[in-house]
């Protein structure tokens, strides 16, 4: 497939934002149970939510560049019964709304006790919004990934590993961002967040390696024989019917060399996993520079990872476009 930068930025930016929100609420939950020191709520949760919101808006903005008619985008919310894309279109603004409210609750210090848990733990609006946001963050990961995983014709995507990797890689980049952000706003949480960022990065490596291994062993279900319905083992295309390009020759081919593809694969394998792990480990004690570098390197790697994710998918329609003339 042809990797579209609008979609690459959409999925990586909102993935990092979802991970960042999950990191914020994880820290809040630990702090509520007195497992972590209470950070400055205004600075860490409030501004952290704002940062997540900025990433979500940027991602949503990028997605509009993918559309031929952005002014009709509102129509995309109608077919949620059948289309994962439609579901994403509904869940993304809902998640943005909850992140906004969650940030506001912390920003304005709005903490009335709504009820008390059996252990005597007070529940305020931010806790309820945090739970709702967590559910929506996971729902959004599933919707985004299922857009690709639900397409049975694209064997490289049609796997539960696609969903697992969207969750793990978005989570890893979000927790790395949270660790870097905490170095400025809540230094007492840096060790906790950097630790979790490292753990999720390691899990993400396992998931991505598993999908790379799976994809390297795929056997295409369709062949030129089934594509044109002639059983002979030797069929060669003499012409695709036109000399110039068409949508079919642009949208479904990445147009890069095998060498470029391999270079990008190795770049993301290094930039998403081992490099951020080293930088996170060195920033564990609160060195802001290495934590910021960890996130930036990992995010750059995520752009390459997403590019490779699209480029690697081989669409069966390509069987019909193998020779110009």
């Amino acid at each position, binding site marked *: *497939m042809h990797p579209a930068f609008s979609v690459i930025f959409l999925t990586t930016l909102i993935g990092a934002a979802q991970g960042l929100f999950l990191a914020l609420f994880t820290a809040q939950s630990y702090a509520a149970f007195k497992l972590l020191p209470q950070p400055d709520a205004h600075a860490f949760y409030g501004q952290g939510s704002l940062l997540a919101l900025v990433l979500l808006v940027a991602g949503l903005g990028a997605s509009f560049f*993918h*559309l*031929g*008619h*952005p002014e*009709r*985008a509102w*129509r*995309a*919310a*109608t*077919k949620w019964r*059948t*289309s*994962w*894309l*439609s579901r994403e*279109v509904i869940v993304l603004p809902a998640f943005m709304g909850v992140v906004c409210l969650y940030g506001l609750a912390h920003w304005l210090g709005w903490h009335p006790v709504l009820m008390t848990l059996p252990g005597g733990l007070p529940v305020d609006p931010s806790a309820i919004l945090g739970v709702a946001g967590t559910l929506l963050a996971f729902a959004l990961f599933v919707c985004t990934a299922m*857009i690709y995983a*639900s*397409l*049975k*014709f*694209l064997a490289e995507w049609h796997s539960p590993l696609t969903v697992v990797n969207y969750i793990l890689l978005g989570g890893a980049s979000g927790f790395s961002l949270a660790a870097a952000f905490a170095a400025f706003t809540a230094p007492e949480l840096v060790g906790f967040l950097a630790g979790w960022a490292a753990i999720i990065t390691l899990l993400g490596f396992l998931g991505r390696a598993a999908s790379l291994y799976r994809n390297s062993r795929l056997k295409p*279900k*369709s062949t*030129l024989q*089934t*594509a*044109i*319905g*002639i059983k*002979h083992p*030797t*069929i*060669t*295309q*003499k*012409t*695709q*019917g*036109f*000399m*110039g*390009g*068409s*949508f*079919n020759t642009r*949208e*479904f081919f990445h147009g890069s060399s095998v060498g470029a593809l391999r270079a990008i694969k190795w770049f993301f394998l290094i930039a998403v996993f081992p490099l951020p792990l080293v930088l996170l480990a060195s920033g564990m004690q609160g060195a802001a520079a290495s934590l910021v570098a960890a996130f930036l390197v990992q995010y750059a790697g995520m752009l390459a990872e997403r590019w490779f994710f699209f480029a690697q998918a081989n*669409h*069966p*329609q*390509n069987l*019909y*476009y193998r020779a110009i003339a």
Partner: protein
Amino acid sequence: MTQLALVIDLNVCVGCQACVTSCKEWNTSGSAGPMGDQNPYGADPTGTFFNRVQTFEVGEFPNTETVHFPKSCLHCEDPPCVPVCPTGASYKRKEDGIVLVDYDKCIGCKYCSWACPYGARELDEQQQVMKKCTLCVDRIYDMTMAPEDRKPSCVKACPTSARLFGDVHDPESAVSVAIREAGGYALMPEWGTHPANHYLPRRKTRIKIHEDELERADNPLKVDRQLPRPAMDEPTLDDVTTW
């Protein structure tokens, strides 16, 4: 239930591209707007087409056959492009099974083209909406046309009658008979999309003449007589054999 479709006879198609140009001409002139071309006279021309004819060579030289393969939307009975559409712009008509795009609702997200294994959908660069074969829906129901003209433009253009049009759910229709009796098949059956369009395979054309076709075996009145034998000194038919 009606399911309109094309049946394309690969044994007859000569790859003349008449259906391609006829399709483009009809559909670029319609009320739905033009099928735009970009850079048509430049170095890298491109444009929207609903129908293409491709050419394949089957076998190894010298035992090869050239197969011309017309390719357009197959109007699947279970179209995978329809449920993925987020806006409902892509739909399959209940009354005749044609898969259509509502150009006023399409947001141009290209998701349906990813969900079609045949590559039957193209984004129109000029209108920025997804387009595909409509089976000339603005032609086949046009009561101002003569009944014999109420057929898709490609069918009317084909000089060898390689393209048949009709209801594949009506067992007595010409297309159903052709599918049944000439070994009609669907493309990429492995995906379970159940294309409505079918293709008729190449056939070997041989002529075998039996003796009783030259001379009636039951010839009680001897109306058909045997050909007179030439005399021994007369030239025979080919000078090498005698009767």
